[in-house]
């Protein structure tokens, strides 16, 4: 063996991980070659130095700092959690968002009519992150977005009990006037949504049933503003120019389905053409999966409106608005003066919990979050998603914002866990 070859093997030789015959050859060469002996010595010294490097100690209050960080985080996600009450509805995720937004928007309008006499604003006027609450309503229990789940009133009741009950929205706006009257009568959501949890029918179930009939009209009126249509339904609807028109088309089967569900507690089947469209989005392939190479995506999140900033407080913190409740807390979302925080920071920060949830639904893992230097603004996230869930994952992502990057073909790589890096951007 010559010097060049020997030196290639030296590192492994030092670790005693060479295979026997190779090791013998190396040693034979070393016994005669002074230069290579020097190399070995120098390598040994380096490894010793590395081994004896001083360890750098963490700060003495490391654990305390950790607790504080965790506390901050859990407080924030608890607030978001309590804004949503999960509901098991058998719909593909793609549509569930729109449906629930409609339901909640409807609810919000109703609150206007309740005895508190507060002025309301339609949910649509709120920044996108607030939509996370209605979106989460449908999404959290929706594990696979498959059609096999059934509306389970037991589950709904149970879940409703576990979580604080209500969201009361108080904000200014005159969009509320657009609500058709028939819708207004039906939903006693002002009361049921915001009151304490009744023992029997839980709020969500109630409002679902009551809203069943007038569903169609309110949905149309809520959804028509383009911004509204854009957020949940932009995904994969290729080549359709008229958002409002598209929405109406999509929404009909949904509204019918929700009625079915509410009335019969039965499984919903969406029409085939609808399902095909979703499937098409999910498997469009621009780039095949390659083992070990992270896919890079960017998610463009809609900007928070700075004209109406909202602050979410718990009843404990805003006693003058507190509602006495027997179960859980009442949360108030109230309008405050526009904050000085940049829109961007808010949009991106609030996307994280939703993103987490999307990831969990696939059975994947949020491995890390990378923050911009010196701030708490997440810049990108690094996730691992089982390959077979990639299609659904992308669909879900598209509900959080505009997705850029290779659309992944999950076919044929079922056993893999794919690493993906998602950069969070604002337009």
């Amino acid at each position: 063996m010559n010097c060049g070859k020997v030196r290639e093997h030296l590192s492994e030789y030092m670790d005693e991980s060479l295979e026997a015959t190779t090791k013998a050859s190396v040693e034979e060469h070393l016994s005669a070659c002074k230069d290579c002996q020097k190399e070995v010595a120098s390598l040994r010294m380096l490894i010793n130095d590395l081994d004896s490097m001083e360890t750098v100690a963490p700060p003495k209050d490391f654990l305390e700092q950790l607790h504080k960080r965790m506390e901050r985080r859990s407080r924030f996600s608890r607030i978001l959690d309590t804004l949503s009450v999960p509901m098991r509805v058998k719909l593909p995720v793609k549509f569930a968002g729109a449906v629930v937004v409609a339901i909640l928007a409807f609810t919000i309008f109703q609150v206007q009519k309740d005895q508190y006499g507060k002025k309301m604003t339609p949910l649509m006027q709120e920044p996108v992150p607030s939509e996370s609450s209605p979106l989460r309503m449908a999404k959290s229990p929706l594990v696979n977005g498959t059609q096999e789940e059934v509306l389970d009133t037991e589950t709904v009741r149970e879940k409703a009990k576990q979580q604080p009950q209500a969201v009361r929205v108080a904000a200014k706006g005159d969009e509320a006037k657009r609500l058709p009257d028939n819708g207004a009568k039906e939903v006693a959501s002002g009361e049921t949504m915001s009151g304490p949890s009744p023992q029997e029918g839980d709020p969500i179930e109630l409002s679902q049933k009551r809203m069943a009939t007038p569903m169609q009209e309110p949905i149309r009126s809520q959804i028509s503003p383009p911004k509204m249509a854009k957020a949940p339904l932009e995904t994969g609807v290729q080549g359709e120019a008229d958002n409002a028109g598209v929405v109406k088309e999509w929404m009909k089967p949904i509204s019918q389905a929700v009625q079915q569900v509410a009335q019969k507690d039965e499984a919903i089947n969406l029409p085939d053409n609808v399902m095909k469209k979703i499937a098409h989005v999910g498997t469009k392939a621009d780039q095949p999966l390659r083992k070990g190479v992270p896919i890079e995506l960017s998610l463009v999140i809609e900007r928070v409106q700075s004209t109406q900033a909202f602050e979410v407080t718990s009843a404990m913190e805003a006693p003058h608005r507190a509602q006495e409740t027997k179960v859980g807390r009442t949360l108030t979302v109230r309008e405050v003066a526009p904050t000085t925080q940049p829109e961007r920071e808010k949009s991106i920060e609030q996307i994280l919990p939703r993103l987490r949830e999307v990831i969990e639904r696939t059975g994947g893992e949020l491995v890390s979050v990378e923050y911009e230097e010196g701030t708490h603004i997440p810049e990108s996230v690094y996730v691992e998603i089982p390959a077979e869930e990639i299609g659904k994952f992308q669909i879900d992502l598209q509900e959080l914002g505009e997705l850029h990057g290779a659309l992944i073909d999950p076919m044929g790589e079922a056993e893999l866990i794919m690493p993906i890096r998602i950069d969070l951007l604002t337009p």
Partner: protein
Amino acid sequence: MNEHVKDTGRSAREDEILIRAFQEGDKAVFDELVLKHQHKLFNLCYRLSGDYQEANDAAQETFIKVYESLKRFRFESAFSTWLYRIAVNTCKNKFKSSTYRQKEKTVSLDNPGLSQDDDSALEIRDDTYSPAKELEKKERMRAIEEAIRMLPPEQKTVVTLRDIEGFSYEEIVQITGTTLGTIKSRLARARLDLRKRLRSVMQDELR
């Protein structure tokens, strides 16, 4: 060597007991896990990121992720392997950030935590106090730190895990998710790079 193996085994068993307690509902046990692993983990993060504050952020972020996923932990690998895997990925993503790359950190003797000895800064500057050997050793250490810092991320990770933290090849395979062959070749390159850099640094100092 045997002692090390025994220790690792015992340590893994301790971890398992703690984690099972956590999964049964004893959340307070998490603190014990942190206290047990924080030093080695912090050190790893420091070596990988080269900056004390970044290391602190990365280490904390790692433990938070652990906390969030711990109830789903299935013991398919040792806890420490999983822990370090998360840490390595967390630090790797910090590298990728353009904002991080822009701030090129240079070794500073005043870097908090770099040395246990608070007077180190003073000692280096004043020849009369420290014996020549001591100085030389400190200089060499500083040079090594700098050289490690300059390594490309993947080499830096492997040499840190192997030569500084003392993980086995098998553990490194699990932590990084790369193959044994890749690890061996990265390690060889890293060690060669380090020796080259150190030689040139030492030569500069001799002038």
